[in-house]
């Protein structure tokens, strides 16, 4: 079950296979590759691969930030415990 509600004036990218709306073209291309893998055309396959790599780059950046945040959380508690407890 998927309820979607795209804003009226949004430049929504819609899926050519099922008509579902997505906020960005990258997400739309990823959806096509994941949900309509067998029905993909060549152009869509290339778009999917590009989107997948773009997503992977975003993901790697996110993970670096997460690692940094973990280190911060760890030292925050380490120092706070040293001072307060």
């Amino acid at each position, binding site marked *: 079950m998927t309820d979607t509600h795209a804003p009226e004036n949004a430049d929504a990218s819609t899926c050519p296979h099922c008509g579902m709306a997505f906020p960005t073209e990258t997400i739309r291309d990823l959806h096509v590759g994941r949900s309509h893998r067998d029905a993909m055309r060549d152009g869509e396959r290339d778009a999917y691969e590009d989107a997948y790599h773009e997503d992977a780059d975003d993901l790697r950046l996110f993970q670096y930030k997460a690692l940094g945040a973990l280190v911060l*959380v760890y030292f925050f508690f380490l120092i706070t415990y040293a001072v307060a407890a």
Partner: protein
Amino acid sequence: MSGRLRAVTGTAAVVSALVAFTGTALAHSGGLSGAAPDRLAVPTWLFLFTGGGVVGASFLLASFATDRAFIDHVHELGRRVRVPGSALAWLGRLVGLGGLLLVVVSGFFGPTAPMESAAIVVVWAGWWAGYAMTTYLVGNTWPAVDPFRTLARPLGDGVREYPERLGAWPSVAFLLVLVYVEVTSPLADDPRVLAAVALAYLAVALAGSAAFGVTDWFERVDPISRIFRLYGAVAPITRTDDGLRLRLPGAGLVDDLLADRSEVGFVVALVWATTFDGLTSTPVWTDLAESVVPAGVPAPVLYAGALVGGYLVFLGVYRASARLARRTAPTYRTAADIARLFAPSLLAIAAAYHLAHYLTYFLALSPLLVHALVTPLTVGTVPSLTIPGWLQAIPVVSVLVGHLLAIWVAHSIAFETFPSRIQALRSQYAVTLVMVLYTMTSLWIVTQPELPTPYV
């Protein structure tokens, strides 16, 4: 001090804070116990931040698991087992009916002191502590055991259709009424009241089944059945059309568990009920009641108002988190749909708090429970079970595992739902924040000294 040593002491401090938390959590177990909580070794604010930090850090750790195939694989681990279903169902019905009979007979005709009454011990230690644990640790057997359903079974399909548009809201209202009765009446201390409430519950179940049919009443309205069904989704054993299926704990939460927003309302009500129960015995609540009740607000109004008002706040915060997730992801899925998808992850936390709350309580009272089951109507002295010190670690582990499970479930649901992996991670910001806040609220409640509920 070397860096390594400092790291070790830091970790030890976090662990000891959590150990201190369970020390106080144990004091919070319903009507049969009430020791004052121990002093914490660290300031309360730091203790609360530690709890919140653990949950937040587990979200950051989960962000390193982004392989969809791996996530799916984890949830599909399991096997099927065949069992003699109907024989077990009959056994369950007999046990349930026997339990209800014992509670009513012992409640009306047995001893009245709480610790001597078989009705009190069987309901609170046996059923609400011990049996409820089996529903999320093993599997939901309540549909077979439920004595109310067994007695209502001959009533069949009822005389009218259950109104679809009401969804689970009547169930939410019924749950809040039960919580109100539990908090404001001597249900945990007075066997006569307990037996009367059990009979009243039976009467309501029979009337409801006669009106809407047994299946609709117990699948849609009856709050106890719904609680155990939701707890059962956490459990490793589930019933399928061809026998039992063994799966990893929490794997059932990833399935599309909730049908609509009213069922989300019930999950939030379940989470709020635990919080409200604890909140009404904190000093803050006593202060509030002592300033408001003499000023002319009747105590029942205060309790009912706080119960409903607090529920609406919890529901509002959760829904706001779904709207926020819609923007951070970003996605065009409706906020109601996002709320529905992520709500099952809260159940892992609810089950973990139940276990942390009741495990040692159950074990300590288990000799009393055995005594109550074999000689329900006589008074006698029973040796209490000495709880070994290392068992104190189990509640800590359960709270931690519950939160990790909740974060993992939200993570898996997001990866199942959203096409982009970074979008899946970003969609979890709000629900992680809600979990962190909820952890800190719960930890704050358990660090407060437990006072008797005022004006009831």
